[in-house]
Each structure stands twice: as C-alpha cells, then as structure tokens.
C-alpha cells in the first residue's frame, strides 16, 4: 500500500530560490513526507496571455529535483484558483477582465468576489472561454511537471479545482446566470452539473498531459456534505477538500475529518496552518489540533497549508527565512505520533449520498443567497441552514442499514470500535485519547479528541460505539 501523504506547502514564488532547498529539508526533517507546491496561474502568465512554459519548466524542474533529493514527494496544486492567499484569484488579469469569462447574477449584473480589500469579477465555470484558458493552463503545468520530474514516483498528487469556496456557488438563489435560462432549469442541480463538468474537464486534460491517473484529486471547498457535486464525483473520483477553521468547533472539524475517511477512499484533506492577514485570526495550535483529529480519524492524505509561505500569511510553520517557528516542534511531535498509527488498516467506507437531496436542501436555504460556504466557517451544517434538511443522520442510518460502516473502524492493540470499554494498564503508562462521535462526548474525554486521561490504578473508560480510540506511549509520542 502506498504510504500516506503528509504534505506541507511551500509557497515557492514568495521564497528566494536559494532558500528552497533549506525550506524543503526543514519540512522533511519535521516529518512531512511530501511538499505541496501551489502553482499560481497568474504568476506564470506570459506576455501573450498564455502560460510562460519556459519559466514554469525551469521552476518545476528545480523544485522536483530538490524534493526528490530530500527523499520526499510532490503534491502539485494547480488551481486554476489555487488558494485564498493570491492576488486576483490567482487568475491572469487578461482572463479575469474578459467579459466573456464573467459569471452573472440573476439580473445579469457581474458577480464580484472579494479579493483582499477590493473586488474582482468571478469567472463562470460555464464560460467556454474560461474553460479553454483553464485547460490550457493545466496542460502546460502538468506537462512541465512531468517533464521536470526526476522519477516516476516524485509526483504523489495533482490537485485540480478552485481553492476558495466562493467560486463553486452553493446557494440556490445564487446561481451563475451566465448563458442559462434559470426558468427552465433547477438552479442547484444545474450548479452541481456545471461544477462536475468543469472539474472532470480539467482532470481529462491533466491525464492527457501525462499526470498519473491515480494521483489526481478534484478540489471541493466548503462543507462536502452540502455539495451535490461532491456527492456525484465521490463515486468515481478522488476528492480534496479543506477542513473548516477551528472557529467552526470540534464537531465540524470532526465531521469533515470523519468524512475524509468515510466518504470514499483516497481523499485528500487540506488544513491551514495560520490564516491570511485579513482573515479572522487563529491559534498556532489550531491546525495541529485539526490534524490530530483527522489523523486519529484515519485521514491518509493531508496537506498543511502553509508550511512555508514566504510572507503574505500569518502563522506559517516556517518563517520567511525558512527557519522553524515555535509551533514547528509540535508538528514534529504530531507527525512522529502519526507515523506510529497502524498502517494498512483501511478505515474508510463509501457512503452513498443523494445529490438530489442535497440540491433540495440547498434550495431551501433560509439565508437566501448568503453563501453556505461562508456560513459553514462556523460549522453550520446544511441541515441547520435549510428549511428542507438533507438529513445527514438519515443518510447515516441508511448507510448502516445497507451494511456499510458510517464510523471508521479503527483498530489498535486488538481493540475495535465495537468495544464499549477499554481497559487501561497503568503500568504501561498508556494514555487514552479519544474522540467520541456521539453527541457531546468529545469533551468528556478529550480536548479536540486528544486530552489526557491520567491513569491511576485500574481504570475502565467507557466509550460509545463509533468512538475512535488511540492508545499510545506518551514518551514515544513526544508530548
């Protein structure tokens, strides 16, 4: 079985190339086994408007060689809109300003999205011009990566799609009205179909350009339970999505972490170390807490954004000189602990979900056109935001009745989640760290799932079925 991906991103265009080797080596020394490289389309736009293939090939060849020499693998994040920390959505100015590319509101006004303190027109996934330009970018980027790759296994993942939630519209009154008669279609279903076509189009181009098919992941932002497109795509494709911020609370983090292992095998989970300067602040330990929950839940592939940001970011693991910040040692401890988790235990189960039910729930969103992705930053689920709940619990019941395990089946030291009690051995200095999937139990036993239960004497710790239990040696785990 392929080793799990534990990646940290290197925002290499903001870091002096002379510091690339040091940054990569430092991240690898912390325990990351892959380096996530966000390739920003806008930064590689040539004078003719097309991709600057020569510079792209030069940079990628250098980076892939450095990564290979460090014994790591590469995760290529190609966008077209690769993340939130980019100017102009990461899309070349010429493309962004092209009227044929724009998304429109119901009354045919251009749809604008926040770009730091100004706004820029939102591209339409339905626009043929935009699709053509985006595919040309993907073709160039993948071609340069494949040509610059020093070995067949250096490229571990290729992530395609938009890294910010607003581009995949997710509210029923917020459809992209560009080139479609909204009176004749169901907006929510139509949106899901357009998103699906856009992402599959990018994937097709990437495959034609030489990207390993098994490495492709399609980016879905926001609450994946609230995405009809995700429900459809997950049946056939690997997905990548972002965990909600810690502000959303442990339940939302847990829900997404659990989905990362239960929706379908092979998902990639993005966690953010820090935040953009104009976003709500987070703690340096937030991403570590999220990662611990995700790894405990069985997430195999994660990227920590931003391992080394080179600026324009608050709270990256490495500072702008590539030196580790204080929180780096905690990442090192966490990754050391994760390396000791049992490998080869497949904890995921495919859960069939109904895209139509999700679309109906979206149509019943009580906040109208206020984007669900915006509201989900506080962990609000689609059921809470809709007058027509999708019924996540019902989905869970259906899955269980169909013989599929909703909760991850976690095994450690011969204990399974069917056990209702875990006997602790004080002599072994073992610690129980648990996240309970049942209501409210996470905080009885744990803080973000990983609090310490001090063991004195013979202790039995009751757990509900479905809980994740990790028994470990505290000394080996490193705090």
């Amino acid at each position, binding site marked *: 079985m392929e080793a799990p991906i534990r990646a940290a991103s290197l925002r290499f265009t903001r870091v002096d190339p002379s510091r690339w080797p040091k940054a990569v080596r430092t991240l690898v020394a912390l325990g990351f086994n892959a380096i996530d490289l966000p390739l920003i389309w806008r930064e590689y736009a040539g004078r003719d408007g097309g991709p600057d293939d020569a510079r792209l090939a030069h940079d990628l060849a250098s980076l892939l060689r450095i990564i290979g020499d460090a014994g790591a693998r590469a995760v290529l994040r190609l966008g077209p809109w690769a993340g939130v920390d980019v100017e102009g959505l990461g899309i070349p100015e010429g493309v962004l300003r092209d009227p044929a590319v724009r998304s429109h509101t119901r009354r045919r006004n251009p749809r604008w999205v926040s770009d*730091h303190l100004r706004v820029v*027109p939102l591209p339409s996934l339905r626009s043929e011009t935009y699709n053509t330009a985006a595919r040309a970018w993907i073709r160039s980027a993948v071609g340069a990566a494949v040509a610059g790759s020093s070995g067949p296994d250096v490229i571990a993942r290729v992530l395609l799609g938009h890294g910010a939630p607003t581009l995949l519209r997710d509210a029923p009154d917020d459809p992209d009205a560009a080139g479609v008669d909204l009176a004749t279609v169901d907006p929510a279903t139509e949106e899901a179909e357009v998103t699906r076509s856009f992402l599959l189009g990018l994937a097709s181009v990437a495959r034609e350009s030489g990207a390993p098919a098994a490495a492709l992941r399609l980016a879905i932002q926001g609450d994946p339970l609230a995405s009809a497109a995700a429900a459809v795509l997950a049946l056939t494709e690997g997905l990548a999505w972002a965990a909600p911020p810690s502000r959303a609370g442990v339940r939302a983090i847990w829900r997404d972490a659990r989905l990362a292992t239960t929706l379908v095998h092979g998902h990639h989970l993005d966690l953010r170390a820090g935040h953009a300067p104009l976003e709500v*602040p987070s703690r*340096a330990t937030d991403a570590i807490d999220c990662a611990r929950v995700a790894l405990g839940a069985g997430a195999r592939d994660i990227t920590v954004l931003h391992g080394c940001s080179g600026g324009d970011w608050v709270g990256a693991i490495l500072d*702008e000189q590539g030196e580790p910040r204080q929180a780096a040692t905690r990442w090192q401890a966490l990754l050391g602990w994760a390396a000791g988790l049992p490998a080869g235990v497949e904890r995921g189960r495919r859960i069939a979900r109904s895209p139509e039910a999700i679309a109906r729930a979206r149509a019943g969103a009580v906040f*109208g056109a206020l*984007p669900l992705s915006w509201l989900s930053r506080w962990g609000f689920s689609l059921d809470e935001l809709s007058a027509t709940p999708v019924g996540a619990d019902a989905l869970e019941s259906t899955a269980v009745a169909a013989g599929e395990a909703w909760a991850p089946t976690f095994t450690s030291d011969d204990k399974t989640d069917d056990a209702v009690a875990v006997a602790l051995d004080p002599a072994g200095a073992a610690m129980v760290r648990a996240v309970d999937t049942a209501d409210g139990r996470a905080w009885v036993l744990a803080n973000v799932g990983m609090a310490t239960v001090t063991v004195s004497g013979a202790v039995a710790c009751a757990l509900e079925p479905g809980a994740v239990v990790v028994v470990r040696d505290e000394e080996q785990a490193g705090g």
Partner: protein
Amino acid sequence: MADGTTRWSGMDARSWARLVSLVAPGLAPLPPRHHARDGSLPGGMLLVAHDGTTVLRALHTLRGVVATDGPWNGRDTLAALAAQCDTRFAVALRRDAAERFMERVGGRCTTDDDAVDTTLLALGVLRELLDDCALDVLPSPLRSLPLPPVEVVRAAWDRVLPDGHSAVIALFEGPTLVSGVAVRRRGGVVDQVHGVESLRAWSGPLGGDFRRDYRVIRAAVERSLGPVAVGLFAPEATVIELLRTETPGSWAKALAVRDVMVEPMPPWAAMATGVSALRAAADESRRWAFDADGWLAKTTRKVIDLAGTVDLQAVLGFDPLAVLGVVLRESRPRPTQPDDPA
C-alpha cells in the same frame, strides 16, 4: 488602504492575534473546544434569517440553532433573541437581503475600483439595506455611523498616513515586545505591512523599557521603511485599558505621564488621543504647565500646542476612537491565550 499588491511580512499567529484582538476582542482565537456549542458560552454572534413576518432560523456562532418559526417584529425580536443568547452582536437578514446586496454591488462596481471605493460602495449598499429593513444589526451605534464621501476618506487618509511615510505600533508586556505592526504607504496604497518578527529583526536586542526602546524601534523602522509619520509605543495592557475607558482625557493623561509614547505625534493623533479633554482642563493647568520645567511640562505643552490643528471628527463626521470605545465596551474582555506557541 491595503490591496492585493500589499506585501505582508513577519507575522506569527500569536502576536498578530494579540494585535487584532486589541480592537476586536471578539475575534480573539479560542481553542476549538470553545466552539463546541455546549450552550453555555456567552459572546459569539447571532445570525437571524426572517421573511419579514417569521423568524426562519436564528443561528448562534457558538450554540448552533437557537430559534425557528417565531414571529418577527423587527429590532425588538432581534434584541430579544440576542439577550436570550447572551450576546451583544447580532445581524438579521431578510431572505432577499443577500441577493439584493449582490445585485446592487454587481451593478455599481467596476474593475478599476480601489479598496476605498469598494469599501465605501459596499458600506453604502449595506446602509440601503438597513434603511429598507432588509438588514438589521446590533449594537445600535453601528447603524448610526455617518458614511463620509470617498474624497473625504481619501483626505483623512492623507492626513493620517501621508504617501511615502510609515506608521508603527509596538506593544510590550513587561520588558518584551510582544506585538506590533509597521506599515508603509507608497503610491497611494499601503505597500508593506510588517509584524513583530520584522520589528524585532530590524531593532535588534532591546533594553526592556519601552520609554527608551521606542527610539531604537522608530529609528529601525525609518531605516527599513522610510520616515515615520506616527508611532505608538506602550504596554499592551495600558492600551487595552485606554481603548475601553469612558473617562475623557485618559489618553492625554497617559501621554503626559508617559504611560504611552506617541512619537512622532502628528496633529490628528493629538486630537484623537483626547487632547480636547486636556484643553478643557488646560484653563486650570495652563499656568502650571507653561511655568513648570521638566519632561511632564514639555509633553503637556506639546500636546496643547497641537490641539485644534486637525480634528478627524470634524472631517469624518465621527470620532473613530470614540466609536471604537463604544464597541469595545460592548465587547467582552479579550480571552487569554495560554499555551499557544508563536
């Protein structure tokens, strides 16, 4: 103002959170367990969706769904729901509010709008929605803020931070520089924003007394970014206290006794720091202030001399510091951040 070209540098999570939560304590990051929706936490924000007659859903950012299907009677309902959730900040949206916002902004924005244009345009649309009762907010002072024209904001901005100049805030906890920011304006926009890591790197080792260290930090910023238009150097706790106080002239008093250092002190800063209160008291103290010698008298005279030259309240139509004080007094104290590494 900042835009997509602004370079942000030298920020670790802890010091930046301290700086932001100084003026917005509600944004202070909390451990995830505080967002577990256990129903007992005060604070947070309430979001209410209604259709004009019925509350469709009331969501609290810490507690989840708190109400559905109740009658909607405007601000009274919003205030009651906020009180029920033990929060002072609430937003009510009529079901069509978001779409109206998008349509109106969509019809008025252009690709050439800068940050000032865009911000004022969005605030203007929000004001229209408030007037249409499609949007409502608590606390009330946020509703009544005047919205100055673009030209006025630009003029005020030119006075606060002239082009080619920089500004610095350095906050201390004991002898340690724990938070701060330095910004530079060039070409009409803030082109560089630096956090405390940059300040430390530029300044080198500090003595541990902000009343002396401010000279070192100011000189370091001037070497790295250019002339400093205004600098605030103070213990963090003192600034928190001054921002929340209702006592007139508190800033002026703190300046006079060097509890905070504002160096250099531009005219607008003299006004904003409550020098009007000092001026009112100056009738009593003028003789003493001008006859006496020593640093206290010099500082007081300096502040009095600057008073009245630029009044941001007169320019903008409101006193930014006073508005901030109202919001902060409505807010809960900033939570501590134990055990969070930089």
